């Protein structure tokens, strides 16, 4: 029982990481908080579904295409909308929120409801780990996210573009003086975030079915994790995800499933009271400056 809970807690945490890492990365790089994140997740899911069912592509291809598409959407979103309100937090928030709302509810309106919308699992099998069966899909998810995080780390630390990202993230003005095109970087950051949302969707959705309302849940999870971990800090995301993930599973097992949400809320409030900027909060200076 305990072991099983731990195993699923790990999986749960990993899912959280996948769900929130893109959102956090975008913010970390360009300070844009993309409230359309959840809807991009759903967008990717439905695109994959359609490519799979209507066009009849094999899953990997469909997944890759939809990831690419989502990334493009993200980029366009920045170029045509966010760029015009760049720097005005209010407008950025409202604009992205509006976009997300429009996308999600449009899917609902188009009648993308019902259980027929689902993605197949990669490998239809499950293995005995310790005392519980774990299906291949969940193992794949864990593997995928480990690889993903690893790649991101390498990318940010060793590629020139990644360094540019860090440069912008640390001090935009200076970075500009070194001739970095901040708009270009920001575009990339948003579309990278979108792509990550898509990746998450393509690996996580096969666990269940696609439903529009998930879009909101994903956004909420991403926000919760980011707030707890500290906006813009990937380390924070990971720690926070583990924290919340374990808390949720264990409350589920030992207290009651419907308390899980309360646990996350409590976590948020506690963190906000103790350390408003989150565990690894980079916003600390703000605190001090005010």
């Amino acid at each position, binding site marked *: *029982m305990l072991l*099983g*809970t731990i195993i*699923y807690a790990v*999986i*749960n945490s990993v899912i959280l990481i996948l769900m929130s890492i893109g959102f956090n990365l975008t913010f970390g790089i360009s300070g844009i908080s993309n409230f359309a994140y959840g809807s991009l997740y759903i967008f990717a899911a439905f695109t994959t579904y359609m490519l799979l069912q209507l066009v009849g592509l094999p899953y990997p291809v469909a997944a890759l295409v939809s990831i690419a598409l989502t990334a493009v959407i993200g980029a366009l979103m920045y170029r045509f909308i966010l760029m015009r309100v760049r720097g005005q937090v209010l407008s950025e928030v409202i604009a992205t929120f509006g976009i997300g709302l429009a996308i999600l509810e449009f899917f*609902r*309106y188009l*009648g993308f*409801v*019902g*259980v*027929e*919308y*689902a993605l*197949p*699992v990669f490998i*239809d099998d*499950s293995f005995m780990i310790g*005392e*519980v*069966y*774990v*299906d291949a*899909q969940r193992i794949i998810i864990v593997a995928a996210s480990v690889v993903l995080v690893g790649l991101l780390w390498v990318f940010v630390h060793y590629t020139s573009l990644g360094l540019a990202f860090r440069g912008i993230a640390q001090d935009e003005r200076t970075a500009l003086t070194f001739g970095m095109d901040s708009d270009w970087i920001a575009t990339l950051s948003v579309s990278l975030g979108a792509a990550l949302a898509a990746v998450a969707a393509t690996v996580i959705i096969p*666990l*269940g*079915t696609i*439903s*529009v*309302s*998930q879009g*909101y*849940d994903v956004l909420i999870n991403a926000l919760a994790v980011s707030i707890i971990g500290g906006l813009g800090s990937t380390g924070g995301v990971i720690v926070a995800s583990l924290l919340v993930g374990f808390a949720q*599973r264990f409350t*589920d*097992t030992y207290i*009651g*499933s*419907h308390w*899980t*949400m309360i646990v996350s809320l409590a976590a948020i409030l506690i963190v906000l009271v103790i350390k408003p900027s989150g565990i690894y909060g980079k916003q600390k200076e703000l605190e001090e400056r005010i």
Partner: protein
Amino acid sequence: MRRRLWAVGLFLATGLMFSLCAYAAEPIVIGVPTSTGFVEGKEGLAIVEMAVAEINAKGGVKVGAEKRMFKVEAIDIRDAAPGVPVPEALMGIEKLILEKKPTVLLIGPFRSEALLAAMDILTKYKVPLLGTIAMTPATEGKVKQEPDKYKYVFRTCLNAIYLVKNLVGTMSHINKEFGFNKVYIMHQDVAWARATADGMVKNYFQKAGWTVVGQESYPTGAADFSSALMKARSAGAQVILPIFDMPQSGTLVKQWKAMKVPALMAGFISPLAGPGAWKTFDKKIGGAINCNFELGSAIASPKVPQSVAFLKAYQKKMGKPMEAGHGPAPTYESVYILKEAIERAGSLEPDALVAEIKKTDRSGVMGRIKFDEGNQAVFGMDPKEAAVASVFQWNDKGERVTVFPESIADAKIMLPAGLKSAK
């Protein structure tokens, strides 16, 4: 300021216009307030239009001397979506009534509290409702208490009480067959599901000497059921009784299969109701037993030919099979109940109409339909006696085999791998 006055004038005008064209309406208006953003609502509306088309094709409804057509006026009250306030739904219904002047409403709210709140509106405007989604018995209670105040509210679909009866039937059937008596209950944390679960425990499991090895309730939107399944496994549950109508519950099925829990999954999981489920869950649902609330809702039985015909007709009209395990059949029936009632009453006068609807006794898609004093369609175990639900099991070929009630059963329940009969 100009603009503001303008806006005022404008929306006064629209209001006026609406009501005018409502008056001008010659055909009999059937109002359909529902949540088109959800399967039950989407298909329900389609079915009302289908039935109306059939009737109109045959020349319409005979009101006294003249023949009149049916006309469908739908409105999306969105109340099935968790985020939507009840007032929003109520305003939708009120708007539909005031502007489209419907003779009767079909389908109605999803949420129990919305239906309960709507009852007063219906009384106020004297518009009968044949509800086919919300399942709370509370409405009948109100009808019984104040019959002439709430006589306008009917329900042709299964209510929570009958759902319990059916599940009880299924469980005792399982118990008879295999001697199982350890159950693990998992239900969605909403009124009707909770009521059903508690009802099962109180009215059956305790009496019939079952042991409830665990009961877990999940908030709408929950997406990981591992811990409960682990508990069920370690507690040696032989039967898992799920009660869910949220799309995410599909995950539960997949996880149940993936985690190879050696227990019979028998209950209600909305995503399992329709034929589409086989593809949706890529063939991972063999052995699952599901209770479709009404015969004809996405499942037919050769013993009731109307149901077969109904599904065929739907498939033909929509080009894809029906998926909703709750709502379609009673919705279809309701239209005909209405037609017959109108023709018997020979007028559209609400009270007369209501009186006639109450006298209904027709056998159709879901069996024989009569209303009890609570204006609830009577459900039973034999389609010749009353309306029936249909409990079926997914076999490994991806077919749905009716296993209960016996009157329409095609086969016996078969056990999933790793689960031995206790007999």
